[in-house]
Structures are given as structure tokens and as C-alpha cells.
């Protein structure tokens, strides 16, 4: 399971739950293939709604279904779901308080060379700014499984961003520390901290290992719960390290780095440096090539930690 794509894990958890819960409904906007939801559509046709390429309609229909007791999971590329349907997310989901889970697939720069139209580097900022909207970005398939199961138990709106490809696991089978809305300490350390989310957690963990070999002790915090941000974990971390590096697959403004800096600045001022995508269309390439180019890999993160500790 470790190398299952996070989107596929969401589908597997929902299919298992749909066996006994007929109110679970998945909706796709011609995105069942890219969202790994074809098995759901095939196995539960009565609980699947296709809206065609119409993301605004996708979200509004999900809200209408939810108003009538359905647990609606709207699955669509994160780039379109988060900004094309932004107003529907704001009014029909968050403001009207409907039980819709917005599943943003192929988030960040997953689509690589397809270009800026297909990248979602604004979704954290956009969705986090909406009252009554939660934002989750799980790091690996194990955490995605735990998160999806936790979300099935509540009736509140949420946006969940996952990447396109299978990612190397951060955790291991049988040892997946997870508490809803609490950051996970991936490894502990006292010189510096790396706060990361989504696909950036694994390179952050690898960076901490590299730095450990040099005698630099680094704590890595998996902040899958971007909103509500685990403020206590951030404050406690800031108190115990000299500086913090935040890492995110997002534009430099309004994302995880901004939120962490806000909390640290208010409660325990320490140096916070954000590693992110640039405020520009990203260079053409696969997501790995893009990450490497902007230093969003273990070496780049380790270099930034060394730099701020100097």
C-alpha cells in the first residue's frame, strides 16, 4: 500500500464505506479516470454522479445532494475545483454549511509540463480564506487513509488536496501516528524545524536525515491539517528550535509558510523561511524536475536549513 497514489487511497476507503453506507455519493466532472474513481463508478453506479466538464455545477450539485442527507465527495482536478468553482465552494458549501468534501486531485504541479492552467499553486490560500472551510493535504497513502476515515465521521465542509502520482511513504504499515487536526511529528530535533505538508513531507524527512549525519538535529512536522492549523504544535516547536523552514508545493503567498509565520511571529518570534514555488509560472518539466529546479527536494531543504542556522 505504501506506494499507492493518495487519490486511489481515498477511492478505496470510500468504496469500503459505501458497502454499508448508501448515503456516500461520489461526483466527478469527467474526472473519474484521472481521479482513480472509475472503480467507484463501476461498483456503485447508484451512488455516483457524473456532471461532465462543469466544475461549478459539480460543486453546486454536491451541495444540493448534501442538503438532502448525502455525504458528497466532489472529485475534480485541484486546479479547476479550487478556483473555477471557488464561489460555489464559498457559497453553496462553506456558507450554506453542507456536508461536501472537495477532493482536489493532481494538485500542486502534479500535471508538470501541462503548464500553469493545470497547476494549483493558489488553492491553499484561496480555500483557507473561506470561513467554515478546512484544508487538508496528506503526505502519503497511510496518512490519506487515516484522514479519509476521519472525514467520513464528520458532516462539515473540507477541501483535500492530493497529488497525481504514487509517493514514497513517510510512515510504515502499522505505525501511522494520526490524530485529527494535530500535526504529526515525523522526527524530533532541537536545532531547527521543518514544517511541511503533502508531497514535501518525504523530502523534509530525508533532509533531516542528511542533516543528522552532519550533527544537525532537526524536527520535522507533518502539517497535513493546513486549516485548522495546529497552532499549539507550531508554538511548541518554535520554542524548542533556533529557526524554522516551511516547505510547500504552493505559491509563496497565503500558504503554509504564511500561516506558520503568522503564528510564530505572534507567539514566539523566531526566524521562519519559506521554501515554495515561485510567484511565476513554473519551469516546464515533470513535477520531480520542477521540485528539483526550485530546491523542493531533500538537498534543497537541507541547504536552506544549513543557511538559516549559519
Amino acid at each position, binding site marked *: 500500500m505504501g506506494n499507492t497514489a493518495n487519490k486511489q487511497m481515498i477511492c478505496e476507503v470510500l468504496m469500503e464505506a459505501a458497502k454499508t453506507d448508501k448515503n456516500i*455519493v461520489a461526483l466527478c466532472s469527467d474526472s473519474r479516470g484521472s481521479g482513480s474513481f472509475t472503480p467507484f463508478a463501476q461498483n456503485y453506479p*447508484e*451512488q455516483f*454522479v457524473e*456532471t*461532465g466538464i*462543469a466544475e*461549478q*455545477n459539480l460543486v*453546486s*450539485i*454536491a*451541495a*444540493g*445532494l*448534501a*442538503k*438532502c*442527507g*448525502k455525504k*458528497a465527495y466532489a472529485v475534480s482536478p485541484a486546479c479547476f475545483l479550487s478556483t473555477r468553482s471557488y*464561489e*460555489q465552494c464559498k*457559497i*453553496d458549501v462553506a*456558507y*450554506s*454549511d453542507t456536508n461536501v468534501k472537495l477532493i482536489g486531485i493532481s494538485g500542486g504541479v502534479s500535471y508538470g509540463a501541462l503548464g500553469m492552467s493545470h497547476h494549483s499553486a493558489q488553492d491553499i490560500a484561496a480555500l483557507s480564506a473561506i470561513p467554515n472551510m478546512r484544508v487538508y493535504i496528506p503526505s502519503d497513502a497511510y496518512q490519506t487513509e487515516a484522514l479519509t476515515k476521519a472525514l467520513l465521521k464528520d458532516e462539515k465542509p473540507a477541501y483535500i488536496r492530493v497529488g497525481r502520482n504514487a509517493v514514497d511513504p513517510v510512515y510504515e504499515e502499522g505505525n501511522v501516528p494520526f490524530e485529527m487536526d494535530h500535526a504529526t511529528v515525523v522526527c524530533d530535533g532541537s536545532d531547527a524545524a521543518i514544517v511541511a505538508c503533502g508531497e514535501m513531507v518525504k523530502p523534509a524527512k530525508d533532509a533531516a536525515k542528511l542533516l543528522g549525519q552532519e550533527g544537525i538535529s532537526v524536527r520535522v512536522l507533518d502539517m497535513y491539517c493546513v486549516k485548522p492549523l495546529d497552532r499549539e504544535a507550531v508554538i511548541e516547536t518554535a520554542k524548542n528550535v533556533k529557526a524554522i523552514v516551511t516547505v510547500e508545493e504552493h505559491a509563496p503567498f497565503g500558504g503554509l509558510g504564511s500561516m506558520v509565520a503568522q503564528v510564530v511571529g505572534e507567539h514566539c518570534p523566531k526566524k521562519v523561511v519559506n521554501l515554495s514555488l515561485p510567484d511565476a509560472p513554473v519551469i516546464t518539466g515533470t513535477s520531480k524536475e520542477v521540485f528539483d529546479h526550485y530546491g523542493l527536494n531533500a538537498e534543497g531543504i537541507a541547504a536552506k536549513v544549513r543557511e538559516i542556522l549559519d
Partner: protein
Amino acid sequence: MREENGQKRAEYEQIKAEKNLKRLAYDLREDTVDLICAGKAGHIGGDMSVMEILVELYFRQMNISPENQEDKNRDLFVLSKGHSVEAYYSVLAEKGFFSKEELHRTFSKFGSKFIGHPNNKLPGIEMNSGSLGHGLPVCVGMAKAGKMDGRTYRVYTVMGDGELAEGSVWEGAMAASHYKLDNLCAIVDRNRLQISGNTEDVMAHDDLCERFRSFGWYVIDVADGNDIDELHAAFEEAKTVKGKPTMLIANTIKGKGSSVMENQVSWHHKVPSAEEYTQIMEDFKRAKEAF
């Protein structure tokens, strides 16, 4: 004043018992104008044009009341043209969902629950609206849920004609016919005016009936959308349609009921002056006397 209200209430009950909805529509026009004057704000022109549609829905068509809010088979309504909220609040207060006194005392005032667009924290209101082009797609979801669960309820939404320029309306229209949602009935309050002027000058919609037919809808052209008898017949016809959603194009008059306001684009959003108020109320009284 209290006694007067009591008398008015008794009169309403009698009117409703007689199904004299034509008069009720004018009583609620009076309430709506009073509400707008009290709150010092309101989309008065569209409130007047939509009134008979709301009265027919709430007092004759829909299975909905303050007592059945938890009933999963209750009919569902979304006011997609959320800016006609003053008419909507007046109808809901008359239906007993909340206090008319509190509504008039607090509407649009600091800290009020009675916001200038529908607020679903209030009893009787299913969804927040105000941003146009949301009601129809949301109602598609509600109607689809009804089909999935074998429910008997019907879903209604009222849109403005200017609202039809929103692309999301047509996304919803496509989905409604694709899913054969014959438990869905949408109404266009076709008053032909929007804030910038004549709808056909701002963004032409004619022939609206043909447009919706081409999207797979059963369309009923209601020649006089302020005639409650004609609306009644159209809603009854809609209930017999199988396999497709129904659209009522209700040809209404913006500012209906008063010579001061009718067909005047300047009355899209306006609070009457004292002089205008007197004339409006006189016009309403005369209209009622004709019934």
C-alpha cells in the same frame, strides 16, 4: 397598532381559508414595502414581480410549513434570485416561520439574522443565495437526491431573467434534463428589466422558451406571471410531466402593483419617499378592491 395587527391576522386567515391568494399577494406587497422602508434598503422592483409566484408556491403548491422542517419528504425551495429576499421574508413570516415583528424591527440592521439575502440560519430557508446562478445547480442536486432515495418531494427554484446570463445556469439546465429530473420545477421571473436596463439590451435572452426546450426541458409560457390562476394551472401541469424537468417562463411586471414603480428600471433597488409610499399603498388598496 397591536389590535390592528390582530385584526389583520384574522383577516389573513379568512382570506387564506377562501384561497383568496390574489388579495394575499397584495397584503404581502404591503408588508414588503413596509419592510423595505423599515430596513431602508431593498430590491423592491423584483420583490413586486415575484410575489404571486411565491404566494402560489407557499400557500397552495408546496408541502412546506414550520411543522414539517424535519420531514424528509417536504418540498424544497431555493430563491436563486436572492435579492428578492424582502418578498421571501414576508411570505415566510406570513407562513409562520419567524416573527413578523422581529423581521420588521431588525431587517438589515446591525447584528440582524435578517440579512439582505437569504440566510439559511433562519427557519424555512434551505440554502444561502445571493450570488446569481447557484440556485438551479443546487436544486439539481436536491432533485437527484430525491430520485436516489425514492422520495416524493418536489424541488422548486426561482431565477431572475438577468440571472440567465450566468453560465452556471446552463450547466445546471443540462444536468437536470440529462438526469430526467421531473421532480424539479424552475421558474424564471421574466420581468424584462435588470439593473442596467432592458434585459434584451443588456444580454438578449429571447426566445427563452426555445432555449430551455433545446436544453431538454418541458417549458410552460405563463403569459401573465402575476396572475395567480394562470400560475396555478402551470404548476399543476408541471406535476404531470414525466421524464424531464419543467421550466415556467413567468412573464411578470417589475414593480407590479403600483403606477409609481411598474416597468421602471430605477425601482430595481429603491426605498420609497413618503409621498411615493402613500401612492404605492393607495395603488395596492385599489388593486385589492378589484378582487
